[in-house]
């Protein structure tokens, strides 16, 4: 059964790696719903957050293909229940419209929005949240002439993750320590998929 999965990939900072990871999906004709690249908690390590709609089996195989890339340290995949995630959206509307027809204050309160810029000609609101939440404000603003709308990729934190610092130390050791042996075949109970 297909479901929304968030894939978190820890990588080295290397030109061309984005392409290497992206083609793993495109080769199999899998659409990436959302992609974010950012620094991670560990210095010098980048963190890719990829959202796709696929079956667990496919996602598991994709993660193995991703980990196979030389500059990838680790790829995890998680269902929505296993992560905390946010997306950010920006909305540009005519200041006259919102000021006259819609109480700005009401918007800010009801949708947890923030006014980033208020100019004579336009106002920019910002919200963060899940897609349904950011979408709701689009609907509300649409009748008042939404000039521009943009939403960011998903960023996600894995609930069960202890961060990457410790893991990174293990990778830096020439001979990997015994205790880092992990296995997805036996350790099903583990909430976080690791390879």
């Amino acid at each position, binding site marked *: 059964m297909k479901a929304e999965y968030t894939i978190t990939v820890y*990588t*080295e900072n290397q*030109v*061309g790696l984005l*392409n*290497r990871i992206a*083609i793993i999906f495109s*080769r199999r004709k899998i659409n990436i719903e959302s992609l974010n690249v950012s620094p991670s908690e560990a210095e010098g390590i980048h963190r890719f957050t990829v959202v796709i709609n696929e079956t667990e089996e496919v996602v*598991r*195989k994709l993660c*193995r*293909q991703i*980990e*196979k890339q*030389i*500059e*990838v*340290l680790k790829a995890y995949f998680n269902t929505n229940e296993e992560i905390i995630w946010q997306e950010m959206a920006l909305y540009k509307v005519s200041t006259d419209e919102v000021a006259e027809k819609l109480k700005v204050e009401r918007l800010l309160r009801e949708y947890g929005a923030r006014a980033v810029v208020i100019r004579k000609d336009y106002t920019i609101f910002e919200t963060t949240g899940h897609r349904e939440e950011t979408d709701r404000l689009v609907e509300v603003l649409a009748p008042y002439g939404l000039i521009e709308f943009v939403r960011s990729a998903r960023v996600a934190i894995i609930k069960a993750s202890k961060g990457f610092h410790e893991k*990174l130390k293990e*990778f*830096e050791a*020439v001979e*990997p320590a*015994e205790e*880092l*042996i992990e*296995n997805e*075949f*036996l350790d099903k109970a583990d909430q976080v998929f690791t*390879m």
Partner: protein
Amino acid sequence: MNTVNTEIESKNKTAILNPPLQGGQGGELSGSQAVLEACIAEGVDTIFGYPGGAIMPIYDALYDYNDQLKHILVRHEQGGIHAGQGYARSSGKVGVVFATSGPGATNLVTGLADAMIDSTPLVCITGQVFAHLLGTDAFQETDVINITTPVTKWNCQVTDAAEIPHVLSKAFYIARTGRPGPVLIDITKNAQIQKFNYEGYIKCDHIRSYRPKPIIRKEYIEQAAALINQAKKPFVLFGQGIILGKAEKEFKAFIEKGGLPAAWTILGLSALPTDHPQNVGMLGMHGNYGPNVLTNECDVLIAIGMRFDDRVTGRLDKYAKQAKIIHLDIDPAEIDKNVKADVPVWGDCKETLPMLTQLIEAKQHTAWLAKFNEYTQQEIDIVIQEELHPKEGEITMGEVIHLLNELTNGDAIIVTDVGQHQMVACRYAKFNQSKSNVTSGGLGTMGFALPAAIGAKFGAMDRTVVAVIGDGGFQMTLQEMGTIMQTELNVKILILNNRFLGMVRQWQQLFNDKRYSFVDIQSPDYVQLAKAYGIAGQSVDDRTILKSALKTMLEHNGSYLLEVMVGKENNVFPMVPQGCSVSEIRLK
């Protein structure tokens, strides 16, 4: 020259050439020299390549390194990379290929894809336009890194000479370790020219984000051994992993102790001598009868260093469903990719096999092994006898290979192209030692054999190399006869000419109502063509002189081209038709 300098010079006598190091810290070297120093430090002796504008500085430096690095000038970059593959496959070392930017680099793509899917260790170095011209559509500029990303294990562009030693040490390390594969390094012309302070070459032995060998888990070894010990009908499938892992001895000890029948994929061929009593034959679409049928009867299937290619498995949902699957592989991504493993044994088979051998009981599975032989007998009666010993009619490909076996006694390296002759050669060729079968398996690259045979010969100069090629494949890369001419190499070219693109014709006959659509291919006079390249040869269509013609070919001092006119519409059987289960294999 001060004393420190002299000391360093004497220490690195072979590693440091031109110019001599200028100080205790190392010396001024150009990027191009650093490339060649890296090759020498990595033990490279042969480079296959073709010069061009953007790689000229490296070729200029090569002029001074001629006594340490043998450069083979090929006739096309595709020939260069296939030669590199052949070299790697026969020698077990990393193949090195040079090409220029633009078309030089794009001509490598087929070979890269071939090496990627067949796990062949290569380091390809391509020239690139000056860094300041990148992205300007400069002359012979192409985005090599992005073009080659899906077909390389790793690739990297270098724009600063100082990065060269480090990047090349990574390249060689990545190419040869773990599951081997092709690596491409694209070096801009400015970096080749640029002088920098060379501090010596340090071989790479660790990359933090790359773990070539997964850690072996003992419990899986134990589980696998328990399954094997309980098995009544265990069956081993082995692939190139045995050869790449240099674990031929360990593998033989394993199957001999367990009394396990073993069948091979075409890349695994020659890892175990073909006449070993437990070698039950070839897997897959044109494999042997017994191994295919009995895949669906065994109770424990032990796959070693093979990847369950669709040509091996046939229809997956009817593949070995009754069996417990043990899968040994160095690449974690192969486990469960096509066939779900009950016991995954990650790791280098050089290490896992002895562990497993220790835990399994010494056994004989006589009755079970006899079952393979029963199927072999049926296959002999219906297919093999007629193929190898036809009494009349046109010459068959099988009888040519059979006679070749008699003359080489299984000691030659056989390089095959792609198609009917490849299947026949793999089915019937005899091999006594490992790294003797060189073929394009995963990608199925027609035109592979001739250049790969050139490379294979350079990788094993003391061995006889016979390139068995169809009339279609030969016409794809026959310009490499020029390379043979210039290098005065001794390669035997055996063309099995059926005047058709035989494999496609076979399918058209069997599945497309004999609608022979564009498979009727004409050939030039190959003997005349060879003669033009200074290669002796003859063409044979008479059975009575076939053996002596093969003998002449093998005994000829130098390269030789023998064309054998074989049956026009002969088919390769047995055959697992596409979409069928392996047990639905047809004998005719």
